[in-house]
């Protein structure tokens, strides 16, 4: 992974990660779901790394494996070069301070019986970072950081809207001074206008605290906007891993191409018939032989059914798992030509931003 960015240091690394569910004990069903099946990746310090794929591709499982929230069936996770699988309770607790997660549904992940102040203070107390008035000050500061009011500390999660709840979740994740935060679909449950606020907040916090972000998501526009590198997953495997702009400008894997082609482009002038993927995603309990994408791939040939393609590195340092990526990349499918906003829209957006800034400086700042 570090081939194209040798100077950067790897903060978190997954090595041959495998997670199978089921098939275990006497009472569990005999079908084995191969949620994650041999994934290796390395997250560089300070970058925003995105993991993208459709439901059931194993992206959330991978996110949890990277934090050791679930134990892998096989493989290893290295944090700063050291395996986190062998850590004891005390060491693991220290690790949890540095690696944090934000969940998709901000309501389900906040304890409804705890006040917001207690929710945010819990990691501070747990790690013994501060006590008494110092702790309260820290909570106040955290709430301000994420754009909430200090008075909100006495309220309960149900009193907040979805966007505000996500802010609470972020404040809690920040409480232990983390080095890396994994966001598991952090904005997909939110309305568009709120989503933009949270995206901006995450980016501000990343700059301010020098965080590394791993974003697990399905929304490709959000990923293009936020991330430096992207890993595309299909049925438990990484099929392509590349710098964001390169991936969107010239997708190599046919699945990436199909994924990009399927995004509705927000410009009515660009309507055109699309080359669509046929059929549904096969079950991860019985993935197809050979290349797992061959059942839906428009370029599939006999060899794809029999031979599993390795994740090979291209001359320009990208990674792709396809027997025929060299031929396919010229097919022209996929790459998105996003239309520039119309002159009228650009003009009004500029006007909107100007007035918005003026409003922010006039009133109390709000992210």
């Amino acid at each position, binding site marked *: 992974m570090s081939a194209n960015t040798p100077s950067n240091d790897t903060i978190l690394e997954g090595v041959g990660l495998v997670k199978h569910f089921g098939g275990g004990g006497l009472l569990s069903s005999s079908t084995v779901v191969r949620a994650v099946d041999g994934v290796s990746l390395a997250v560089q310090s300070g970058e925003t790394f995105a993991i993208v794929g*459709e*439901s059931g591709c194993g992206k959330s499982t991978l996110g949890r494996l990277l934090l050791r929230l679930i134990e892998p069936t096989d493989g290893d996770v290295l944090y700063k070069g050291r395996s986190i699988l062998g850590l004891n309770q005390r060491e693991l607790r220290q690790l949890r301070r540095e690696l944090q997660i934000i969940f998709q549904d901000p309501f389900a992940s906040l304890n409804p019986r705890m006040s917001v102040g207690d929710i945010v203070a819990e990691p501070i107390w747990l790690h013994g970072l501060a006590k008494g008035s110092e702790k309260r000050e820290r909570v106040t500061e955290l709430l301000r950081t994420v754009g909430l009011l200090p008075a909100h500390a006495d309220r309960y999660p149900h009193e907040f*809207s979805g*966007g*505000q709840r996500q802010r609470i979740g972020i404040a809690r994740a920040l409480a232990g001074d983390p080095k890396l935060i994994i966001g598991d679909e952090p904005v997909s449950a939110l*309305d*568009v*206008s*709120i*989503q*933009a*606020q949270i*995206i*901006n907040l995450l*980016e501000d916090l990343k700059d301010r605290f020098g965080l590394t972000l791993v974003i697990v998501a*399905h929304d*490709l*526009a*959000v990923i*293009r*906007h936020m991330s430096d590198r992207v890993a595309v997953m299909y049925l438990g495997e990484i099929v392509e891993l590349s710098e964001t*702009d390169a991936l*969107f400008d010239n997708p190599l894997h046919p699945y990436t191409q199909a*994924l990009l*082609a*399927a*995004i*509705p*482009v*927000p*410009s*009515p*002038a660009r*309507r055109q*018939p*699309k080359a*669509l*993927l*046929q*059929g*549904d995603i096969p079950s991860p309990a019985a993935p197809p032989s050979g290349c797992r994408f061959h059942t839906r791939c428009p370029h599939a040939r006999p060899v794809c059914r029999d031979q599993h393609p390795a994740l090979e590195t291209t001359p320009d340092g990208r990674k792709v798992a396809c027997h025929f990526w060299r031929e396919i990349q010229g097919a022209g499918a996929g790459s998105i*030509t*996003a239309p520039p*906003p*119309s002159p*009228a*829209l650009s*003009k*009004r*957006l500029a*006007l*909107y*931003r100007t*007035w*918005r800034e*003026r*409003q*922010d400086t006039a009133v109390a700042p*709000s*992210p």
Partner: protein
Amino acid sequence: MAHEATLQHAREVGGSGQLSPSVEKPLLNVQGLSIRFDGTPKDINLVDDVSFSVGKGKTLCLVGESGCGKSVTALALMGLLPTPPARIVSGTAEFEGQDLLQLGERERADLRGDRMAMIFQEPMTSLNPAFTIGDQIAEGIVRHRKVSKAEAMERALEMLRKVRIPAPEKRLRAYPHEMSGGMRQRVMIAMALANDPQLLIADEPTTALDVTIQAQILTLVKRLQEETGTAMIMITHDLGVVAEVADEVAVMYAGRVVETGPVEAIFEDPQHPYTIGLMGSVPSLGRREGRLATIRGTVPPVELMPKGCRFTPRCPFSDAKCANEPPPLGEIRPGHRARCWYAPLEEKRGAAA
């Protein structure tokens, strides 16, 4: 077919009395629809003065964020809104020459699933898990047509073919849980279109689906629309989907239509500050161009709703006039309307520093 002929006739008769005979009479014309819910402050309608129309065979997109009243509006049109707590305060909804809001329960039931049909976001909760797909499609056909069960099943099979479900004979006897989300949504569409409705209301039909499946469903809907000439109201929050399917767009905010017009006008020349903010909030698919423009804050709760324009507290351009006087849905260009005192913004808000 017979229905279409009658409708054609009705339209010609109705159309002759219009001021401009060249303009086709819309299939559905909603004017000044206001809906109130029991338990909310008296003077505030959750859906307030909503007007739009849908032409025959055309697609109107109702766009807005959660709680803006787009689904409530659709349910009111379908006659599926429970009273109490919902009360229709005022307005008309003319569909094929009759006011939907004046019809009795029996007449509404005759229309539903026949002349107008609806599909929902989550196909699993709208299908009955205890009956086969075939039974559920046939049920609606038997209810509205004088046909035998066997004929209805035949029609159900034809519908499954129409929505491109593989192995339709087998699927006819399948139960909803045996199908994927995308297939279930196809079944819902088959069910909705079984009686050749004139109007299909689709409430976030692809929101729960993956992006590749969403593309399949949108393409299918478009193709079916071309085949059958059904008009559609698509409710969505996804501007990408709007750009793909809409002919006309109505942007809703906090229960009011704030901007309406042809899809090109809305995307190329948006007028209302909310529409502009919404466009700025969506990350572009192109190379990154700095931070997203955001709309500050959240929708105020009902009891704090401003008297005037409901977007006032979040609008960068707002002033005291906005807070106190509700702006009219003024025409900017023919067919393009915006509910803002200061539209077009560059004229009325451009020079001021």
